[in-house]
Protein backbone atom coordinates (compact mmCIF):
# COMPACT_ATOMS: atom_id res chain seq x y z
CA UNK A 1 0.00 0.00 0.00
CA UNK A 2 1.39 3.37 -0.98
CA UNK A 3 1.50 6.01 1.72
CA UNK A 4 0.18 8.69 -0.63
CA UNK A 5 -3.08 6.78 -1.27
CA UNK A 6 -4.67 7.65 2.05
CA UNK A 7 -3.25 11.15 2.15
CA UNK A 8 -4.46 12.01 -1.36
CA UNK A 9 -7.94 10.67 -0.62
CA UNK A 10 -8.05 12.75 2.56
CA UNK A 11 -6.86 15.83 0.64
CA UNK A 12 -9.60 15.42 -1.98
CA UNK A 13 -12.28 14.96 0.71
CA UNK A 14 -10.96 18.03 2.55
CA UNK A 15 -11.14 20.18 -0.58
CA UNK A 16 -14.68 19.01 -1.38
CA UNK A 17 -15.63 19.95 2.19
CA UNK A 18 -14.06 23.40 1.85
CA UNK A 19 -15.94 23.91 -1.41
CA UNK A 20 -19.17 22.93 0.36
CA UNK A 21 -18.59 25.39 3.19
CA UNK A 22 -17.99 28.20 0.69
CA UNK A 23 -20.74 27.34 -1.77
CA UNK A 24 -23.66 26.27 0.41
CA UNK A 25 -26.23 28.67 1.76
CA UNK A 26 -28.31 26.25 3.83
CA UNK A 27 -26.88 26.00 7.37
CA UNK A 28 -27.48 22.23 7.70
CA UNK A 29 -25.57 21.61 4.46
CA UNK A 30 -22.66 23.71 5.75
CA UNK A 31 -22.57 21.56 8.89
CA UNK A 32 -22.47 18.45 6.66
CA UNK A 33 -19.52 19.90 4.75
CA UNK A 34 -17.74 20.48 8.07
CA UNK A 35 -18.29 16.78 8.83
CA UNK A 36 -16.58 15.95 5.53
CA UNK A 37 -13.58 18.08 6.55
CA UNK A 38 -13.35 16.41 9.97
CA UNK A 39 -13.52 12.96 8.37
CA UNK A 40 -10.67 13.87 6.06
CA UNK A 41 -8.55 14.95 9.03
CA UNK A 42 -9.38 11.73 10.86
CA UNK A 43 -8.34 9.70 7.83
CA UNK A 44 -4.98 11.47 7.94
CA UNK A 45 -4.55 10.67 11.63
CA UNK A 46 -5.23 6.98 11.00
CA UNK A 47 -2.92 6.91 7.99
CA UNK A 48 -0.05 8.45 9.95
CA UNK A 49 -0.70 6.11 12.88
CA UNK A 50 -0.35 3.23 10.43
CA UNK A 51 2.78 4.65 8.78
CA UNK A 52 4.63 5.29 12.03
CA UNK A 53 3.32 2.17 13.79
CA UNK A 54 2.24 4.37 16.67
CA UNK A 55 -1.22 3.99 18.15
CA UNK A 56 -1.44 7.57 19.46
CA UNK A 57 -2.86 8.66 16.10
CA UNK A 58 -5.87 6.42 16.68
CA UNK A 59 -6.35 7.90 20.18
CA UNK A 60 -6.37 11.37 18.66
CA UNK A 61 -8.86 10.26 15.99
CA UNK A 62 -11.20 9.10 18.76
CA UNK A 63 -10.93 12.51 20.41
CA UNK A 64 -11.74 14.18 17.09
CA UNK A 65 -14.84 11.96 16.74
CA UNK A 66 -16.01 13.00 20.22
CA UNK A 67 -15.47 16.71 19.54
CA UNK A 68 -17.24 16.39 16.18
CA UNK A 69 -20.28 14.87 17.89
CA UNK A 70 -20.38 17.77 20.37
CA UNK A 71 -19.98 20.29 17.55
CA UNK A 72 -22.89 18.84 15.56
CA UNK A 73 -25.14 18.86 18.63
CA UNK A 74 -24.50 22.51 19.45
CA UNK A 75 -24.47 23.52 15.77
CA UNK A 76 -27.84 21.97 15.04
CA UNK A 77 -29.32 23.51 18.20
CA UNK A 78 -28.14 26.90 16.99
CA UNK A 79 -29.60 26.25 13.53
CA UNK A 80 -32.93 25.33 15.13
CA UNK A 81 -32.90 28.54 17.16
CA UNK A 82 -32.11 30.62 14.07
CA UNK A 83 -34.92 28.87 12.22
CA UNK A 84 -37.35 29.56 15.06
CA UNK A 85 -36.49 33.26 15.14
CA UNK A 86 -36.28 33.96 11.42
CA UNK A 87 -38.18 31.14 9.66
CA UNK A 88 -35.16 30.61 7.42
CA UNK A 89 -31.70 29.11 7.76
CA UNK A 90 -30.10 30.90 4.82
CA UNK A 91 -26.71 31.95 6.11
CA UNK A 92 -26.36 35.04 3.89
CA UNK A 93 -29.36 36.64 5.61
CA UNK A 94 -27.62 36.61 8.98
CA UNK A 95 -25.91 39.98 8.84
CA UNK A 96 -26.83 41.65 12.15
CA UNK A 97 -23.28 41.48 13.41
CA UNK A 98 -21.80 43.03 10.30
CA UNK A 99 -19.85 46.18 11.19
Amino acid at each position, binding site marked *: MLAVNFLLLAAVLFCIGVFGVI*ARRNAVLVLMSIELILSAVNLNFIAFAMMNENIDGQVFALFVIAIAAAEVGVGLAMVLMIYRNRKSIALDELSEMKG
Partner: protein
Amino acid sequence: MIGTLLAQAGDADVNVAMNVGFGIIATVMIFAAFSVVTTKNVVHAALYLVLVLAGVAAQYILAAAEFVAVSQVMVYIGAVMVLFLFGIMLTRAQIGTEDGLNNNGWQLGIPVGLVLCGLLAYVIVDTFEDDVIGERSPAPTELLSDRILSPFLVPFIAVSFVLLAAAIGAIVLARKD
Protein backbone atom coordinates in the same frame (compact mmCIF):
# COMPACT_ATOMS: atom_id res chain seq x y z
CA MET B 1 1.36 6.69 -9.03
CA ILE B 2 -0.44 3.85 -10.79
CA GLY B 3 2.82 3.06 -12.56
CA THR B 4 4.73 2.67 -9.32
CA LEU B 5 1.84 0.65 -7.95
CA LEU B 6 2.08 -1.78 -10.87
CA ALA B 7 5.86 -1.85 -10.65
CA GLN B 8 5.66 -2.86 -7.03
CA ALA B 9 2.91 -5.37 -7.52
CA GLY B 10 5.52 -8.10 -7.59
CA ASP B 11 6.91 -7.09 -4.21
CA ALA B 12 5.71 -9.02 -1.21
CA ASP B 13 5.10 -5.75 0.61
CA VAL B 14 2.27 -4.57 -1.66
CA ASN B 15 -1.05 -6.25 -1.17
CA VAL B 16 -2.91 -6.03 -4.49
CA ALA B 17 -6.33 -6.92 -3.08
CA MET B 18 -5.96 -4.18 -0.48
CA ASN B 19 -5.13 -1.62 -3.15
CA VAL B 20 -8.07 -2.67 -5.30
CA GLY B 21 -10.41 -2.44 -2.31
CA PHE B 22 -9.00 0.94 -1.43
CA GLY B 23 -9.55 2.20 -4.97
CA ILE B 24 -13.15 1.04 -5.15
CA ILE B 25 -14.07 2.50 -1.75
CA ALA B 26 -12.20 5.74 -2.50
CA THR B 27 -14.08 6.18 -5.80
CA VAL B 28 -17.45 5.68 -4.11
CA MET B 29 -16.45 8.09 -1.33
CA ILE B 30 -15.34 10.86 -3.67
CA PHE B 31 -18.47 10.50 -5.80
CA ALA B 32 -20.68 10.61 -2.68
CA ALA B 33 -18.78 13.56 -1.18
CA PHE B 34 -19.16 15.43 -4.45
CA SER B 35 -22.88 14.69 -4.41
CA VAL B 36 -23.17 16.02 -0.83
CA VAL B 37 -21.95 19.44 -1.91
CA THR B 38 -23.75 19.59 -5.27
CA THR B 39 -27.14 17.90 -4.86
CA LYS B 40 -30.26 20.04 -4.79
CA ASN B 41 -32.09 17.83 -2.30
CA VAL B 42 -31.18 18.24 1.39
CA VAL B 43 -32.32 14.74 2.38
CA HIS B 44 -30.27 13.20 -0.44
CA ALA B 45 -27.25 15.16 0.78
CA ALA B 46 -27.67 13.57 4.22
CA LEU B 47 -27.97 10.09 2.69
CA TYR B 48 -24.87 10.63 0.53
CA LEU B 49 -23.07 11.73 3.69
CA VAL B 50 -23.89 8.31 5.18
CA LEU B 51 -22.11 6.74 2.19
CA VAL B 52 -19.01 8.90 2.74
CA LEU B 53 -18.87 8.14 6.47
CA ALA B 54 -19.34 4.41 5.88
CA GLY B 55 -16.52 4.58 3.33
CA VAL B 56 -14.32 6.29 5.91
CA ALA B 57 -15.08 3.47 8.36
CA ALA B 58 -14.14 0.92 5.70
CA GLN B 59 -10.85 2.74 5.09
CA TYR B 60 -10.14 2.61 8.83
CA ILE B 61 -10.52 -1.15 8.71
CA LEU B 62 -8.13 -1.27 5.74
CA ALA B 63 -5.71 0.83 7.80
CA ALA B 64 -5.89 -1.69 10.66
CA ALA B 65 -7.78 0.62 13.04
CA GLU B 66 -10.79 -1.51 13.86
CA PHE B 67 -11.82 0.16 17.13
CA VAL B 68 -11.88 3.59 15.50
CA ALA B 69 -13.90 2.10 12.62
CA VAL B 70 -16.53 0.74 15.01
CA SER B 71 -16.66 4.06 16.88
CA GLN B 72 -17.06 5.84 13.55
CA VAL B 73 -20.03 3.65 12.63
CA MET B 74 -21.69 4.08 16.04
CA VAL B 75 -21.10 7.79 16.49
CA TYR B 76 -21.42 9.10 12.94
CA ILE B 77 -23.78 6.76 11.16
CA GLY B 78 -25.75 6.00 14.31
CA ALA B 79 -25.99 9.28 16.20
CA VAL B 80 -24.83 12.20 14.06
CA MET B 81 -26.89 11.19 11.03
CA VAL B 82 -30.05 10.93 13.14
CA LEU B 83 -29.30 14.42 14.45
CA PHE B 84 -28.86 15.68 10.90
CA LEU B 85 -32.09 14.11 9.71
CA PHE B 86 -33.94 15.63 12.69
CA GLY B 87 -32.32 18.97 11.93
CA ILE B 88 -33.52 18.78 8.33
CA MET B 89 -36.99 17.75 9.46
CA LEU B 90 -37.36 20.46 12.10
CA THR B 91 -36.22 23.21 9.75
CA ARG B 92 -38.89 22.05 7.32
CA ALA B 93 -36.79 21.42 4.26
CA GLN B 94 -38.91 20.81 1.21
CA ILE B 95 -39.37 17.24 0.12
CA GLY B 96 -37.81 17.01 -3.30
CA THR B 97 -35.50 19.41 -5.01
CA GLU B 98 -35.13 22.88 -3.66
CA ASP B 99 -33.70 26.08 -5.08
CA GLY B 100 -31.54 28.54 -3.21
CA LEU B 101 -29.34 26.00 -1.45
CA ASN B 102 -26.23 27.71 -2.82
CA ASN B 103 -24.86 31.17 -2.21
CA ASN B 104 -24.96 33.77 -4.93
CA GLY B 105 -21.20 33.66 -5.37
CA TRP B 106 -20.88 29.88 -5.04
CA GLN B 107 -18.69 29.62 -8.16
CA LEU B 108 -15.93 31.21 -6.08
CA GLY B 109 -15.63 27.88 -4.26
CA ILE B 110 -14.50 26.02 -7.39
CA PRO B 111 -11.11 27.77 -7.85
CA VAL B 112 -10.53 27.73 -4.08
CA GLY B 113 -11.17 23.98 -3.90
CA LEU B 114 -9.12 23.20 -7.00
CA VAL B 115 -6.12 25.31 -5.96
CA LEU B 116 -6.17 23.87 -2.43
CA CYS B 117 -6.44 20.34 -3.82
CA GLY B 118 -3.58 20.89 -6.28
CA LEU B 119 -1.39 22.37 -3.58
CA LEU B 120 -2.08 19.57 -1.09
CA ALA B 121 -1.61 16.87 -3.75
CA TYR B 122 1.69 18.41 -4.87
CA VAL B 123 3.02 18.63 -1.32
CA ILE B 124 1.92 15.10 -0.43
CA VAL B 125 3.32 13.48 -3.58
CA ASP B 126 6.53 15.50 -3.25
CA THR B 127 7.07 14.41 0.34
CA PHE B 128 6.02 10.78 0.36
CA GLU B 129 6.79 9.95 -3.29
CA ASP B 130 6.60 6.15 -3.27
CA ASP B 131 6.88 5.27 0.39
CA VAL B 132 5.27 1.90 0.88
CA ILE B 133 3.38 0.99 4.01
CA GLY B 134 4.01 -2.63 4.79
CA GLU B 135 1.55 -5.13 6.16
CA ARG B 136 0.16 -4.13 9.53
CA SER B 137 -1.62 -6.38 11.94
CA PRO B 138 -4.62 -4.72 13.59
CA ALA B 139 -3.70 -2.89 16.77
CA PRO B 140 -5.34 -4.63 19.73
CA THR B 141 -8.06 -2.58 21.40
CA GLU B 142 -6.37 -3.32 24.73
CA LEU B 143 -3.37 -1.26 23.63
CA LEU B 144 -5.63 1.61 22.60
CA SER B 145 -7.43 1.61 25.94
CA ASP B 146 -4.10 1.49 27.77
CA ARG B 147 -3.03 4.62 25.92
CA ILE B 148 -6.32 6.43 26.51
CA LEU B 149 -6.62 5.55 30.17
CA SER B 150 -3.06 6.22 31.29
CA PRO B 151 -1.09 8.88 29.36
CA PHE B 152 -4.19 10.49 27.83
CA LEU B 153 -6.39 10.29 30.92
CA VAL B 154 -6.59 14.05 31.54
CA PRO B 155 -7.56 14.90 27.92
CA PHE B 156 -10.06 12.04 28.06
CA ILE B 157 -11.77 13.49 31.14
CA ALA B 158 -11.65 16.94 29.55
CA VAL B 159 -13.42 15.55 26.46
CA SER B 160 -16.13 14.04 28.61
CA PHE B 161 -16.71 17.45 30.21
CA VAL B 162 -16.82 19.05 26.76
CA LEU B 163 -19.46 16.53 25.71
CA LEU B 164 -21.48 17.18 28.87
CA ALA B 165 -21.26 20.93 28.36
CA ALA B 166 -22.24 20.54 24.70
CA ALA B 167 -25.25 18.39 25.59
CA ILE B 168 -26.47 20.86 28.21
CA GLY B 169 -25.79 23.78 25.87
CA ALA B 170 -27.72 22.13 23.05
CA ILE B 171 -30.70 21.53 25.35
CA VAL B 172 -30.63 25.13 26.60
CA LEU B 173 -30.40 26.51 23.06
CA ALA B 174 -33.08 24.32 21.54
CA ARG B 175 -35.52 24.62 24.47
CA LYS B 176 -38.79 26.25 23.57
CA ASP B 177 -39.71 29.30 25.65
